[in-house]
């Protein structure tokens, strides 16, 4: 019996025996979090996965600029979590309110707790509504940001529809870094597309807190071709930074003067979603420093941060990046849980923007860890060519639509 007991102890020692499968909690059900939960469940190893997301459905930001322009229904932006549940992912409809990295436990707003072996945090962004004096939560009801898709998108659309012909639309764009770097300029393009067709005497002014922007020459080429005289871009150096707003009169003040808008879209500065700071994984910049191989927080071991909230070096804050990071992170987490050493990943980003419904442009990049950061692979990536034919632009618009359909199918379908 004694011999048998010793044998039993020896047999019980390896972690693979008798214990429940490891548990990974994923916080946040956007492109990053939902992709990670699904990738973990599908990569083969026996891992229990819980997705913590308070909303019953996700509203996708990519293509929400087309909703603003009346080219697409907001309903086409909604995605649910039934596919996750079918995959065997436990979907918990609650918000994480606190994360104890050392105890490997998170607290939910319904009062319950959740233990985890590793946590993947994908909180997206928080909009710093109070960073612009005069704005705030009440200002956003009058001068919508529409930078988290949903009701804000619908509100901005209604305002554009209600505006008289000849009105001034102002888009205030933030400094880097922020979610979707080409987004404000795609938005300007598609709003201009709507104005040109329905309110041709109107103007669109972009007040920018920076001196250059993503795909700039491509956008400027498109604006000249498609909307001559309609869009004016004011850079930081020329007084583009909005220092104050007055919601009652829809007035935007810059260092050089003020502009009264008929419709104002104020996109405020951003930081990682609030739970990141609560968990101690955000640094003084408001974003989350990570290991470039495993996406594990540099501040709190056991917590991995992916998507817009992460400081991902040269990778932009995009849905494509979030999805690619999620899959690489899921593989690294599975390897770590099995006691292995994750290999260096290679990541891809491809971002399409529409300058018009049949006019697409893109930026692509390939990334790998270098000196602790995700750096661009030299010689790869870049933007669509200037002076391309209408056929090329039309095909990129078609690729954009196919991309959205494919990625939302992979993540939520």
């Amino acid at each position, binding site marked *: *019996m004694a011999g*048998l007991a010793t*044998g*039993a102890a020896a*047999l*019980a020692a*390896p972690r*693979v*025996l*008798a214990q429940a499968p490891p548990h990974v909690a994923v916080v946040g059900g956007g492109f990053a979090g939902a992709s990670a939960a699904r*990738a973990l469940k599908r*990569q*083969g190893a026996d891992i229990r996965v819980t997705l913590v997301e308070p909303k019953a459905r996700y509203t996708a930001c990519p293509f929400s600029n087309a909703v603003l322009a009346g080219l697409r229904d907001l309903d086409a932006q909604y995605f649910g979590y039934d596919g996750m549940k079918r995959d065997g992912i436990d979907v918990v409809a609650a918000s994480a309110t606190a994360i104890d990295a050392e105890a490997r436990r998170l607290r939910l707003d319904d009062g319950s707790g959740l233990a985890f072996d590793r946590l993947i945090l994908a909180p997206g962004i928080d909009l710093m509504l109070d960073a612009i004096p005069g704005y705030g939560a009440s200002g956003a009801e009058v001068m919508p940001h529409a930078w988290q898709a949903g009701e804000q998108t619908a509100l901005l659309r209604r305002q554009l529809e209600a505006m008289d012909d000849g009105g001034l639309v102002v888009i205030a764009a933030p400094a880097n870094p922020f979610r979707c770097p080409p987004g404000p300029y795609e938005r300007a393009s598609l709003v201009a597309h709507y104005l040109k067709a329905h309110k041709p005497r109107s103007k669109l002014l972009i007040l920018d807190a920076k001196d250059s922007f993503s795909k700039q020459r491509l956008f400027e080429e498109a604006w000249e071709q498609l909307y001559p005289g309609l869009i004016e871009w004011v850079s930081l150096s020329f007084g583009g930074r909005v220092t104050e707003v007055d919601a009652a009169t829809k007035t935007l003040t810059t260092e050089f003067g003020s502009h009264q808008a008929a419709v104002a879209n104020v996109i405020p500065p951003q930081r990682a979603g609030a739970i990141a700071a609560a968990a101690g994984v955000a640094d003084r910049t408001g974003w989350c420093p990570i290991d470039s191989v495993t996406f594990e927080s540099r501040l709190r071991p056991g917590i991995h941060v992916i998507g817009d909230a992460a400081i991902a070096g040269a990778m932009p804050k995009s849905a*494509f990046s979030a*999805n*690619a990071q999620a*899959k*690489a992170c899921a*593989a690294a987490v599975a*390897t770590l849980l099995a006691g292995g050493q994750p*290999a*260096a*990943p*290679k*990541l*891809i980003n*491809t971002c399409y923007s529409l300058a018009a419904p049949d006019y697409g442009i*893109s930026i*692509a*990049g*390939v990334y*790998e860890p270098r000196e602790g950061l995700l750096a661009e*692979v030299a*010689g*790869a*990536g*870049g933007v*669509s060519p200037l002076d391309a034919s209408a056929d*090329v632009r039309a*095909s*990129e618009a*078609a*690729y954009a*639509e*196919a*991309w959205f*359909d*494919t*990625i939302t*199918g*992979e993540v939520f379908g």
Partner: protein
Amino acid sequence: MATTRHRRLMRGGLALLAALWAASPHAAQRAPLPAPAGATACSGCHAPAGNGPVPGLAGRPAAEIADAMAAFRNGERPATVMDRIAKGFSDEEARAIAEWIAAGP
């Protein structure tokens, strides 16, 4: 009592054997291969069976995918984004990705 315990140990022993077998290189050939660097990003655009103008990759032989990557990289095959993406991968990396995709479901 002793018999029950013995059975439990037997089950434990069998589970251990199963775990060791699953971890052996022999079994790994049938398990999903670990994805080589970059491979999982492809499905961001390429649905298994394709989607509209974007071709699917499922069921394609590894050589076809690797050759396409090489042709995109050296400009022989016209493209909108694949030329820019292929330049980020060596022949060896592209081949590993192609083999992983070809071995997939």
